[in-house]
């Protein structure tokens, strides 16, 4: 344990009770938002906006879609961090000295 990075007093979210409170509050707000929808009349531009819980569903589905698509894309596009090494604009030192010798 590093004394400089981990103070004696546990940090805010090191206490499970605080994390539980935060999550509890979050879930309560989610519930409230679903309930609040029933009391609010808004102007809808599209028919789908009139569906119950449209925004909640769309937000949830979109986030899941983004993350799963990103995972699939990563499988296709991931390369080692050194992938572009050696394609640089500068001549590697060995070749440069070789060039000088040749001249």
């Amino acid at each position, binding site marked *: 344990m590093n004394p400089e990075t981990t103070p004696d007093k546990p*940090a805010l979210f090191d206490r499970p009770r605080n994390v539980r409170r935060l999550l509890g509050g979050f879930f309560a707000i989610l519930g409230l938002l679903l309930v609040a929808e029933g009391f*609010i009349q808004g102007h809808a531009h599209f028919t789908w906006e009139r569906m119950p819980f449209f925004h909640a569903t769309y*937000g949830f589905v*979109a986030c899941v879609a*983004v993350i799963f698509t990103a995972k699939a894309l990563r499988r296709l596009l991931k390369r080692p*961090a050194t992938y572009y090494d050696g394609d640089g604009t500068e001549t590697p030192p060995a070749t440069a000295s070789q060039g000088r010798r040749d001249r």
Partner: protein
Amino acid sequence: MTPPLFADGLAPSLLFICGALLIPLLSGRIKQAWLLLMPLVALWTLWEMPAGEHWVYGMLDYRLVLGRIDALSRVFGIIFGLMALIGAVYALQVNDDLQYMAGFVYAGGALGVTLAGDWFSLYLFWEVMAVASTFLILARRTPASRRAAVRYILVHVFGGLSLLAGIVLRHAGGADLTVGPMALDGLASGLIFLGIAVNAAVPPLHAWLQDAYPEATVAGAVFLSAFTTKSAVYVMARTFAGAEILVWLGAVMTILPVFYAEVENDIRRVLSYSLMNQVGFMLCGIGIGTELAINGAVSHAFCHILYKALLFMSAGAVLHVTGKITCTDIGGLYRTMPVTCLMCLVGAASISAFPLFSGFVSKSMIISAAGVNHLGAVWLMLQFASAGVIAHAGIKVPFFTFFGHDAGLKAKEPPLNMLLAMAMAAFGCLFIGVCPQPLYALLPYPVHYVPYTGAHVVGQLQLLLFAIFAFYLLLKSGYYPSEVRAINLDADWFYRKGAAGFYRAVDAGFNGLNRWCEQRLVQSPARLGARLAFLGPARLAVAALERLRWRPHGEDEASCGKALESGTVRLGAHAAAAALFLVLIYLVG
């Protein structure tokens, strides 16, 4: 008649560019005061200057207008001036004149582009921006930054030349040089559009942004995040408002980067993808082209500059303090950097468009404009991208930087000036979010839009919080993509691998041709000539002697030829040949 040079004071663009030249001559507090004074004077000038044309100079037969002030240019000028001020405060502890000079020349270029009334001066400042911004990347002084800077300037030279070609063609076609609305209907306007699109990071011309910005210096990235793309947004709004292609390019541009941002390891690269996503919203608004949509695009550019700078400043603060900024290396920093963490959260809430934060009052104008115009698919794409924004910029950036696993890094809050700059931007985000009217008053068209309606607030909160809920569930269940040290291929692959391939192809092609030519056209004929010159007379002599049926000492033809080739003929033969030669000369003579 051209007014005298300083009739209206110095144009803000020239003030920054000329003022930057003084920076190396100053030191200590005076230098710091000068760095803060320049943006303040520019802001005051922009605020006070009445609408119309200022700083007009004659050059040959042209009128160069360095200060066309109207509502659109004023609002962009003000945010650029404000950003130069915040950036200067953030950079006060930097001991590197190169960064200060590059930063101010760059900001001057952006102001020049914004205020330019004619295409020639706009192009001039456009290139000033490209060159100066390159030095903010070079100033990191690492091999990676040097290579990224070279790629960056090459892409911008391409964009700049395309713009210039378009301007020249347009001028040759007899068009007026005033920067104003134009139809996208020919080669000239197409090239101008292409040049602007490069700077706006429109896909597939976007990869320079994510390639270069994360390699810039801590303060350099803050400057970079503000000027290049947003000055391009300004020029798009000025020239191509209502171009339908922008609606679709913008909508695609909001979605494409969110996937990349989700699996990117470098926080500043995540922010760069997020920057592209936000510019997509603006371009989409410009493409829709109605008063509501243009107001939305412009106000979103204004808000975006503040919260994106805030996010880059908080990431920069982490990099400044810990030397690290990749998800795999950082985490848990809220314990040691609580103020920076709070600033980052304000930026994250603003970019995610939470009610009471700036993104809410600007982005929703663009999405509403899509709704009013019954662009259903665009509306769905923009809302999808909004949920994507909360996933990467809203949660991922603060979570992996300040929460998540504790990387055990030694850290403390950054210097006071950096915190102050972040606080200035955070104040702007909150102020605009709570009280949008002063920003709305600056917009090009009268604003009738009301962001805070019950349905809008509840709808937006549902979208955002249920997206967070999905993020939480995926993280908890282990489906969220893990942080790994790797890169993800993007459009820059084509020119990075393409350039290497081109180099190899040219190497093999031209050097091969060179070798072939030397072999076939130089060495072979020379060898043949030498052989002919050497063997010819010998063969001739052998043939002549054969005719005379004279073989010295009964040698056969082969050994006789060999003897003649090597010059080891017996003594008498030499004498006979010399005599024969003299007889021949005598006969010919």
